[in-house]
């Protein structure tokens, strides 16, 4: 046994040159090749690039928001403009950054990891991307189009949650809210198309031998994400259709003057909105579950439990939405139920964190950039999870709700958790997608500067919330004890911006100057590392066959293959029948 662990990584026990596909240049086919592509890899890259673009746009808005809040009673940004900024920032980050990037990750990686040649419905895939893309443009077109007709303000300013009746025609004149509803309706259709595609691909196109319990965890969690999408997104779409009926045809779903209800919008929105959080974070879990094992040189600890925990989180997340509504005067029983349901989610989430810890325990941890981002992800997501438990305690939430504590909490989830995992993803799979390595030096600069900036920005916001600072205010008076925390928070933005400069420079630099990656730069174990970087159109020269969760480990360590552990009976049989090298 012990000997097998000494196998050198260079002895990648498979003949690379023989069954090798032609790598495909990123630039093959020119512009046409990108615009008309139905290749899952190109669509994945398109998704991620447009997500990153909107990330920068919404990031600039966030920086301006922080500039305005740096001093009490500052007069840098008008209140209307500020309200548009936080609405567009939130809407963009969730629907135009988070959703496309996770869709892109699933698109790029799921077919490669299950050893198939494309998504199940390639044209539906292209449709999904383009409807998302034009939907995004429609949202931003509001800056130009919305004032045109009525001259009543431009971009949406009702918050990303668009609570009724602030969105009714009485309180939101002009067309900005219509832009919000229509564009998000469109991107939602794109997301559902992608979700269906991911589910069908993962269930119906797995390569020979890849049973459900041998799928990489990334694929499992992508399936869970996709299921949540098809279950939760329609709630938002339905509510948006009702809102548009209200605004255009004079229906009264949310018109409180005509007997409509403000709270039913909240219910519909959060029936979508809470699962949405798990839709967004699930790919973060997925990336961490792939990267942490490879850089700890151990298989994921407790694979079946990880799968079960993901499914459990998804189920539970459908039944906790009203914890966003503890202040609307729910009856005590409702408050107790939703508090309890929310706390229960902490159990499977905790199991995940412990399993990642268990994976690292006893490993040989390589602190390269993808792993650094994953480690920061673990710490920051731990904080986010724990503040989440604090918010789940209904009486405590009566105080913390809609305060800066909540702002800090969900930025720890979505930046500290998801974005760090996305960075890890990009550092880890960029070599596969482009054929070149990102610079480790620039990567480490990016990591440290951004990590410090992130914590400096959002750490102090916990305290501002505890001191009573509400969300979504464009200014505040001096003397309420919030100044220093806001200033620290705003200073953190500078660090984040510098960190991002390193990242963007690294992305562009590595495309031309990065070290050649080769097929398997990280000495990893899943199927995407068996093909060229970047992979050809058809991904694999021959259809792969797998015997375990880590097919490349089996090849590299023929004396101690994974299926030895997975399925002792199969091991005995193979030992009898063949003496492989």
């Amino acid at each position: 046994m012990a000997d097998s662990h000494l196998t050198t990584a260079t002895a990648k026990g498979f003949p690379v040159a023989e069954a090798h596909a032609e790598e495909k240049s990123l630039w093959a086919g020119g512009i046409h090749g990108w615009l008309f592509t139905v290749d899952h890899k190109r669509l994945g890259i398109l998704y991620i690039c447009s997500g990153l673009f909107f990330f920068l746009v919404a990031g600039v808005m966030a920086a301006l928001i922080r500039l305005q809040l740096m001093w009490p009673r500052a007069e840098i940004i008008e209140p209307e403009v500020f309200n548009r900024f936080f609405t567009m920032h939130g809407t963009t980050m969730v629907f135009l950054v988070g959703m496309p990037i996770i869709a892109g990750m699933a698109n790029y990686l799921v077919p490669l990891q299950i050893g198939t040649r494309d998504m199940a419905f390639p044209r539906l895939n292209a449709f999904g991307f383009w409807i998302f893309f034009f939907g995004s443009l429609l949202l931003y077109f509001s800056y130009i189009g919305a004032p045109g007709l009525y001259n009543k303000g431009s971009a949406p300013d009702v918050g990303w949650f668009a609570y009724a009746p602030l969105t009714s025609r009485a309180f939101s004149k002009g067309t900005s809210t219509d832009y919000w509803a229509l564009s998000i309706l469109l991107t939602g259709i794109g997301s559902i198309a992608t979700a269906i595609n991911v589910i069908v691909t993962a269930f119906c196109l797995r390569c020979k031998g890849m049973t459900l319990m041998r799928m990489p965890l990334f694929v499992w969690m992508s399936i869970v994400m996709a299921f949540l999408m098809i279950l939760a997104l329609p709630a938002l779409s339905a509510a948006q259709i009702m809102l548009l009926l209200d605004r255009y045809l004079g229906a009264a779903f949310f018109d409180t003057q005509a007997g409509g209800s403000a709270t039913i919008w909240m219910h519909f929105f959060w029936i979508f909105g809470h699962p949405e959080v798990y839709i967004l974070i699930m790919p973060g879990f997925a990336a961490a579950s792939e990267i942490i094992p490879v850089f700890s040189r151990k298989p994921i600890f407790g694979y079946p439990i990880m799968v079960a925990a993901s499914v459990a989180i998804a189920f539970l997340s459908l039944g906790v939405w009203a914890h966003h509504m503890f202040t609307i005067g729910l009856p005590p029983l409702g408050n107790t139920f939703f508090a309890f349901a929310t706390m229960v989610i902490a159990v499977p989430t905790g199991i995940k964190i412990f399993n990642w810890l268990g994976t690292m325990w006893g490993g040989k941890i390589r602190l390269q950039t993808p792993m650094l981002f994953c480690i920061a992800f673990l710490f920051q997501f731990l904080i986010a999870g724990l503040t989440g438990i604090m918010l789940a305690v209904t009486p405590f939430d009566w105080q913390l709700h809609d305060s800066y504590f909540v702002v800090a909490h969900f930025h720890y989830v979505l930046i500290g958790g998801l974005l760090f995992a996305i960075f890890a993803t990009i550092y880890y799979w960029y070599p596969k997608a482009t054929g070149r390595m990102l610079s480790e030096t620039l990567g480490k600069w990016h990591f440290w500067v951004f990590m410090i900036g992130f914590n400096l920005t959002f750490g102090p916001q916990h305290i501002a919330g505890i001191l009573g600072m509400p969300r979504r205010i464009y200014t505040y008076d001096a003397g309420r004890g919030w100044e220093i925390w806001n200033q620290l928070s705003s200073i953190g933005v500078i660090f984040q911006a510098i960190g991002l400069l390193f990242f963007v420079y690294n992305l562009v630099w590595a495309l031309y100057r990065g070290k050649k990656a080769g097929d398997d730069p990280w000495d990893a174990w899943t199927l995407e590392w068996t093909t060229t970087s970047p992979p050809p159109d058809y991904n694999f020269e021959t259809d792969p066959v797998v015997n375990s969760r880590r097919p490349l480990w089996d090849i590299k360590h023929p004396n101690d293959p994974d299926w030895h552990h997975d399925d002792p009976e199969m091991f005995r049989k193979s030992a009898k029948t063949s003496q492989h090298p």
Partner: protein
Amino acid sequence: MPRPFIQSRRLLSRLTGMLVLIAPSIAFGQAPETASNGVVHAKQNIFVPMSAAAEEVLGVSWLVTGICTAIFAIVAGLLTYAIIKFRSKPGEERLEPPQIYGSFQIELAWTIIPIMIVFLLALVTARTIGTVQARQIPADAVKIKVIGRQWWWEIHYLSADGKTTEMITANELHVPVNKVTHLYLQSADVVHAFWVPALAGKTDLIPNHTNEMWIEPNTLGTFLGNCAEYCGTQHANMLLRVVVDDQAGYDKWLAAQKAPPVEDTAVAAGKDTFFRTSCINCHAVDGTIAKGVFGPDLTHMMSRQTIAAGVAPLNKETLREWLRDPQEMKHGNLMPNMQLTEKELDDITEYLASLK
């Protein structure tokens, strides 16, 4: 835009200002001191409650904060230990560690322990929800209806049976100390939320729906609060003050508020202008033909500490500035610029300033 209490954008003066702000007595600019003991609780902390309602939730808040801090310390400690201990050392890059796939016992342990913690927290949470939400409110509680409006607070003092409105004021809630005040929360337009951190957690004001909450302050002074649910352009300037007074001071205030407005012949010109222009379409002054319901009641407006729901301290200068162009002081608010002449401005300011 407002002429704020403290206004400077130079960083240096900010930083020195910050040092001064650490002194606890610094509060809300030069806000007039009308609270019984003059203390303005501008700085609040949800862990330092000054009302029974906020105290009730303190126990479970500390409990969950303590538990979460302990979990963080343990898990973060283990993570740090793992990262340091199991780092790949130079020269070992080619070695693979023993491949461990999982352990049923360990998984079971870190499933069951969190379940127990969750169970404990859920029980304490349920009990606290009960004590706050199901509290029997004494019959002699002060009953006040608070109506959220874009972007100010309309406050109705109700009769002892809670059925009729006895007096209407705005933006400033006066309540007696050590006594339960029962709040009925409504909204005239969009969703708002009532939040004074030291007194109680927040409750939403929802149109077409009445919410209830209660406070029982135990400290004298003026407490600052905010609207805590985004409600449109001036959500940030929908500020709220709760003045906690002793019973005698409160009774005196209430009697003064219920009294008819002061008649001062010296301001007849202003009064005349006020009634001639469209002010009365939105504002009310008791005992006159001004019965508007869209804006704040002005009967005793000068008894209030601030103008425009907390944008500036209320005095003749800010009042005149407000009348000259409300959109300048609080951009986007629903009071239009009345295009008053200088003379009209002077007169109306004088008249309103007489409404003590």
